[in-house]
């Protein structure tokens, strides 16, 4: 029987995978991938709660805005990574040490 907890478990796995990617990967772009996974997990929860708990569509709107903001964040994040590469010739996380670029 497909019920709310089944969706919660799936978004939990997504969250864990996103967290693992962010912690373990050394490449900044891979970390941005992790952020996308985590945002997906959150948006999925909102849609699940709308379906099973109360039927008004605020959950869907919240997921919609999460997707919009995640896209804007990915755009700016990748721009920073490219700029960082042009300065430092490498996008390895250990090279991002100084605060002034």
């Amino acid at each position, binding site marked *: 029987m497909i019920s709310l907890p089944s969706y919660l478990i799936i978004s939990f796995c997504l969250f864990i995978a996103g967290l693992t990617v962010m912690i373990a990967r050394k490449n900044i772009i891979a970390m941005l991938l992790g952020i996308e996974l985590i945002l997906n997990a959150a948006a999925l929860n909102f849609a699940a709660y709308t379906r099973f708990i109360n039927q008004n569509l605020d959950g869907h709107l919240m997921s919609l805005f999460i997707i919009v903001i995640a896209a804007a964040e990915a755009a700016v994040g*990748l721009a920073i990574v*490219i700029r960082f590469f042009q300065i430092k010739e*490498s996008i390895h996380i250990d090279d991002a040490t100084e605060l002034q670029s």
Partner: protein
Amino acid sequence: MFLNIMFLLAAGATIGGSFLTATSKNLMHACIYLLLTLFGVSGLYATLGADFLAATQLVVYAGGVVILMLFAIMLTGGVREFVNKFGIDKVASMGTVKTYSIAGFMVVIMSFVIMKILAPIFKSYAPGELPGFSTTVEKIGTLLITDHVLAFEISSILLLGALVGAAVISRPGRTR
């Protein structure tokens, strides 16, 4: 009957894709597995009756963000392993014992915490008869334009900021 099949397929794609994204060494493969995960999540939205969200997920994520990621990977030296200033070849440490142990340890801790939080919900959640639920784009549209019109306008300003900011940052000409 078909709902169960679709749910299993979508859930398998999501979990499998996210696991492979975490553990694939090559960055391009990670991007493709992210694409698979996004398709899985879009299928999950479909089973939840949120068909507009499924389409938005396809358009914005699978169509936009993944292509942006692929271009960014190409613009930052492709997927060759990293050689930093001193020429030491830092192999990406994914897939080694260290990372699996971290992941395993973290999963154990997090699952205990999550189970502790979710236990009351599982108990109290009586899967009674689910009320009929179907959403159409018109419902989301009316909500978006009547109750949440402020969020609608602010997101346009947010997008403007993101566009101008990213364009300024990635403009090549500037030197310090």
